[in-house]
């Protein structure tokens, strides 16, 4: 189920980057990203049930190449 308040969009160019996927899973404080090591496939995977837990810390934006991940506030 997508988030009610938050959506996270991943650019197709980095979607299969397993190294970035692991990094995102490591840094996200609210476990929105799932590590490929947890059987989520070989790229970036999102746990949609956690999207609304996003605390807007922007750590994912800083870890990814500029503009490749976007946090969308659905209430704006």
């Amino acid at each position, binding site marked *: 189920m997508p988030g*009610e*308040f938050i959506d996270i969009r991943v650019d197709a160019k980095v979607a299969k980057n397993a190294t970035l996927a692991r990094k995102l899973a490591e840094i996200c404080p*609210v476990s929105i990203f799932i590590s490929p090591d947890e059987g989520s496939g070989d790229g970036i995977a999102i746990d949609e049930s956690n999207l*609304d*837990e996003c*605390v*807007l810390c922007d750590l994912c934006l800083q870890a990814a190449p500029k503009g490749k991940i976007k946090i969308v*506030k659905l*209430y*704006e």
Partner: protein
Amino acid sequence: MRFYEYEAKALFQKHGLPLGQSKLIDNSSGAPNQARAAFKSLDCGPVVLKSQVLSGGRMKAGAVQFADTADEAGEAAKAILPIEVNGQKCRSILVEEKTPIEQEYFVAITWDGRAKRPVCVFSDMGGIDIEEVAEKNPEHVSKTHFSSILPLTPRIAKEAVGATGVSGSDLNKLAPIVFKLMQIFLKYDLTLAEINPLAKLKDGRFLVLDGHIDMEAEARGNHKALLDELGIGDEETRQGRPPTEFELAGARVNAADHRGVAGNVVEFDGNLGLVIGAGGGSLTLFDAIRDHGGEPANYCEIGGNPSMSKAKELTKLILSKPGVEKIAVMMNVVSNTRVDIVARGVIKGCLEAGKDPAETIAIFRIPGAWEEEGFKILEKYGVDYCDRTVSMYDAAGRAVAKMQS
């Protein structure tokens, strides 16, 4: 959070306080047989059987009985089992050796809110109501404050006991007991550590005959190891009466997620659900609702930055209560709780409960961290909100007015 007597005594025993022999028996139909067996295994002569309830007044209710034989112990257990003391059912029965007492003392450590320090209250007239002693025989009651920051020394305990005129051997035996009680109080974040009576036996020994422990509810997480050791589960709210299913569900919501607090739910009969908290805000807001003529459906406490899902689950729980038409979401000014995260939680809670947030949330008044972000969310869903320019009292009034319109 109150402890049963047997749990208080287990804590005392862990710290070397002197206790009589005892056996705990359960509250099943087999309790009389267990009581007979306990009498025999204790092999100490007469015993006292005490119902384990979270309330005073056991003796008056007949929930404390004496037995000189195993059969009498069985009969006493049978008599005690069905007795409710101030609405509290018997949880178990403590069978304890009956000791020949020469004198009874009272000692309690608690917080003195005005002095902002712990205080030791000691009396050489124990076993009876300490307020009555303080009123009629004030010279027999000492109050000794001590620091919760500076190192605790045995001298303080000696001062507390000596101030009532106790001296010599008794002073030397009592002071270490009082000192240990002070240490226990500080170590476990207690709000009350009481021994009454603390008995001097005819052979000169001192024994803890009854104990009362209250732990600060917020400190439960810090003392999980102790609570596990005593068998006190997260679901036990330990209020002055048995928890309702609604309150137990509230405790489960709080325990399910370590982030922040969304719990301490207490059920009331009204129709306005409350999601309230922050630095004493819960009590203030609850009183404000009542002062405006509102009827709260519950009390609760949120704070410490609960997650979205925690705020959501609490909201859903409150909305599931029959008769609850609206909720008021109000806090004091918050610095350590995210306004936007709570806003998301309560709105999502409404949506998942199949309700329109704009109709259901009577007022949202949480000023503080990330409030601008929170207000954007509230505006999108049409929820009536206010900032810190509206007092908690006035916000409560707005919520009550909506209930009455």
